């Protein structure tokens, strides 16, 4: 695909040129960087170092109306779902882009999920080469790479004064066309510079784990008493799952407030005891031990069984944000060494 050069000081012009798109970008809100719809390119915060939440919610929102019930309680699909404006998500880290790759088969296979898929198809991901990974990043251990274009439509690499812009997909090409006015061609030197940066990127990842054979270890030691030790600190909150770019579990609830009745899907977390609680009171995963084990099983065994890859992109958020320091990488190492 094509390569371009974008002068940093013309980035706003580039974004403004995308007027046929709704542009989502990281913005700073109350001391927090979150992906939101922006109306002015200046709102974008291109500090990739501080993204406690992945852009997952742009396509798979935390609360989403599935059905609307009218006065007679007949179910209708919500208006506005069809024929949405295409979206651009700007400032995506390569790991988070891979996250969408992990979500895709879940929502595509067997019973295609129109809510996710429509948005996914009409959303374009513009990513940044990740030059300054978090201390807890371990993407290279789970098949990722800080400069990986996987899952992205366009990848930008910071060359100092310019961005090196790689078009990855045909969707990306369309965007490059719309912003063509501010794009130029890179020199071969810049090309080399970019490649050099890509080559260096993996070395910046400081946490590693050899995931080879983890799946079988998890299965083999499923009833090991060690799981209890690993989960001792866990307080069953939803931080790890809600900030995870690949977690997709949801709850479906009918809600009625002020006469508005909807069926919604809302993120759920396998860390919550209620998640598997039967109405009878029986709970197949009654304690943190079973739940933490299930999460690791899901990511590093079930996902491989189902889709051939671990359900983890190594973004490290669950480690960084865990209030009690439950450390996925450390835990994997414990299992690995069993």
């Amino acid at each position: 695909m094509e390569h371009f050069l974008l002068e940093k000081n013309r980035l706003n012009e580039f974004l403004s040129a995308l007027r046929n798109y709704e542009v989502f970008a990281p913005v700073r809100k109350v001391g927090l960087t979150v992906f939101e719809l922006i109306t002015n390119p200046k709102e974008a915060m291109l500090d990739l170092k501080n993204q406690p939440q992945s852009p997952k919610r742009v396509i798979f929102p935390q609360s989403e109306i599935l059905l609307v019930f009218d006065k007679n309680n007949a179910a209708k699909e919500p208006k506005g779902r069809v024929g949405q404006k295409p979206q651009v998500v700007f400032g995506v880290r390569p790991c988070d882009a891979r996250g969408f790759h992990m979500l895709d088969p879940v929502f595509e296979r067997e019973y295609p999920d129109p809510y996710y898929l429509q948005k996914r198809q009409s959303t374009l991901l513009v990513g940044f080469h990740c030059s300054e990974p978090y201390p807890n990043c371990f993407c290279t251990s789970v098949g990722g790479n800080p400069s990986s274009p996987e899952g992205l439509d366009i990848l930008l690499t910071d060359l100092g004064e310019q961005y090196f812009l790689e078009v990855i997909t045909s969707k990306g090409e369309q965007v490059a066309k719309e912003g063509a006015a501010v794009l130029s061609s890179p020199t071969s030197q810049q090309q080399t510079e970019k490649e050099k940066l890509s080559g260096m990127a993996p070395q910046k990842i400081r946490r590693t784990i050899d995931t080879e054979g983890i799946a079988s270890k998890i299965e083999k030691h499923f009833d090991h008493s060690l799981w209890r030790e690993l989960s001792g600190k866990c307080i069953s909150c939803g931080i790890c799952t809600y900030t995870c770019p690949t977690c997709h579990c949801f709850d479906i609830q009918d809600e009625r407030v002020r006469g508005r009745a909807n069926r919604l899907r809302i993120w759920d977390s396998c860390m919550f005891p209620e998640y598997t609680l039967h109405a009878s009171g029986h709970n197949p995963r009654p304690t943190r031990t079973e739940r933490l084990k299930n999460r690791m099983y899901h990511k590093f065994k079930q996902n491989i069984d189902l889709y051939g890859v671990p359900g983890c992109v190594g973004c490290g958020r669950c480690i960084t944000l865990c209030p009690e320091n439950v450390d996925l990488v450390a835990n994997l190492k414990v299992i690995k060494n069993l």
Partner: protein
Amino acid sequence: MKLGVYICHCGVNIKANVNVAKLTKFAEQLPRVRVARDYLYMCSEPGQQLIKKDIEEHGLDRVVVAACSPRMHEITFRKALRSAGLNPHCLEIANIREQCSWVHEDRMKATQKAQKLLAAAVSKAALLEPLEEKEVEVTPAALVVGGGIAGIQAALDIADTGYKVYLVEKEPSIGGHMIQLDKTFPTLDCSACILTPKMADVGNHPNIELFSYSEVVAVKGFVGNFEVTIKKKPRYIDETKCNACGQCAQYCSIEVPDSFNLNLSKRKCIYIPFPQSVPACYVIDPDHCRYLLTRDCTQCLEVCKQGTNAIDFTQKEELVEVKVGTIVIATGYDLFDVTTKPEYGYHLYDNVITGLEFERLSNASGPTTGEIIINGKKPKDVVFIQCVGSRDKTVGNEYCSRVCCMYTAKQAHLVREKLPQATITVFYMDVRAFGKGFEEFYDRVKQEGVKYRRGNPSEVYRRGDRLVVKAEDTLQGELVEVEADLVVLASGIIPNKQTAQIASLLKLSQSPDRFLLEAHPKLRPVDSASDGIFLAGCCQGPKDIPDSVAQASAAAAKSLIPLSTGKVIIQALTSFVQESDCRGCGFCVEACPFDAIELREVKRGRRVLEVASVNEVLCKGCGVCASVCLSGAIQQKSFADRQILSMVAALGEEYA
């Protein structure tokens, strides 16, 4: 789930301001509603018939009536439900008359509001649960605490109906304050003469078991099933043997102040409080008896041995348990301690006395055999000071003692009768002569030459051998000094000193004036807030004799209701605990005004936990517990969180 909705026109009362036809149509489309009807008068027989017929034909599970206030006809409609075989608690009423059609003029808006009220009622109705009204058996006996006139009257009324009564009096004889009085106002009958026959009736009544010289020390249980522990103090005399011959007292060498005469005279250490005492039995004062203190005197024992041999120094304090269904509290009052008003000099001058002391002085059986003699002389100038300790914020008693005005008038009359030459002055703030014959009596006394001066004396002091009462006459607007050789302080009534103790024993409340609190000041004046416990006489507030007797009879009648029906119905709106949600924090236990909740141990896995448990008999259904429960484990029947929330949600929706 099938709901029926019944909308009342109430003649034109509702229909005029609420579009009933529209409301009925609206009701039809509400969830779960099977039938919606409107009718001229839903509470009428045909109206109720409409509901009953639908319950039977459509198999309705819940009924919603939109009509007048539930405080009007909830019972009517509950009965209708019951007679149609539906649990009476499966009813919800939407108040579209008092709180809608009668208070709003705009018919459209009133109709809209009625829709909301109805929708809320329907949504709650769907969540109502059938409730059971449980019954408990009643022990056919009553306890009366206090043997003054109120306690005597209550005990006799209950006993005469055929129920066992346990009457507990802390003094050696019943009679209370009334037996100490001379004449009663305004009729001037002799107090003892009208009381002693009643006392004798008590003593002789086959249904009354009298515990004199005894106190209640513990009460457990609840209406219908109280378990009472009574402490009998030792008299050192066998009640069954003593014939009150009085020989013992003649031989007793110890003399002590006679408390019955307010220490104005002396009595022996072995004594009978007064000649007509019931029981007619002597008692030994353990604080002064030489045998009991030092064992160096056996005079009485010896003389009694020759007679009935009733003296028994081996007697010990005894605890007796009785079971009763109801309790009447008639613990009476104490006199205001006039020494807390030092300006009146009671503690300094012998000729400053209290009203009750005057009663003994004036009483033919009193220390002076009825002659008004003070310091050996008949007083020439007598001053009465009213409101001593009543209506007085400085001593913390804001209330009127209700009897002082009249007893002062009576005492002034007695002075006039016995000392025709004396000058008599009464200082008063207001004269409250509100009772039957009171005003007439007050007039009579004034005409008898008793001088009433409006003003609150500031000081009583000695000048020479006489007293001077200094006051501002607020009618004349002048400072006056009145000389006197007898000053009578109309001391007010305060709650019995043991009231707080009694209140905590029986879990009763006290009003701010420290008297026991009635369940409702207007409608339930003799009930306490605890079921099965009733109040009679001055324990509830100052009263004169007829009022005390009336309240005593009322309390007796009230307490007879459970005794005669033989069972009490436990109201259904109690709280209940979802044990699996309870974390045993005890917040509800602490919050319950009726001590109806306790923590009970249950096993959960390996751990033994405590969970709340509601005593439905004690629970009054206020729901305070439910509002302090953090885990939502304790709920009130028919007012559970989910039921209230469903109404909130329904009121929040907009309806066309």
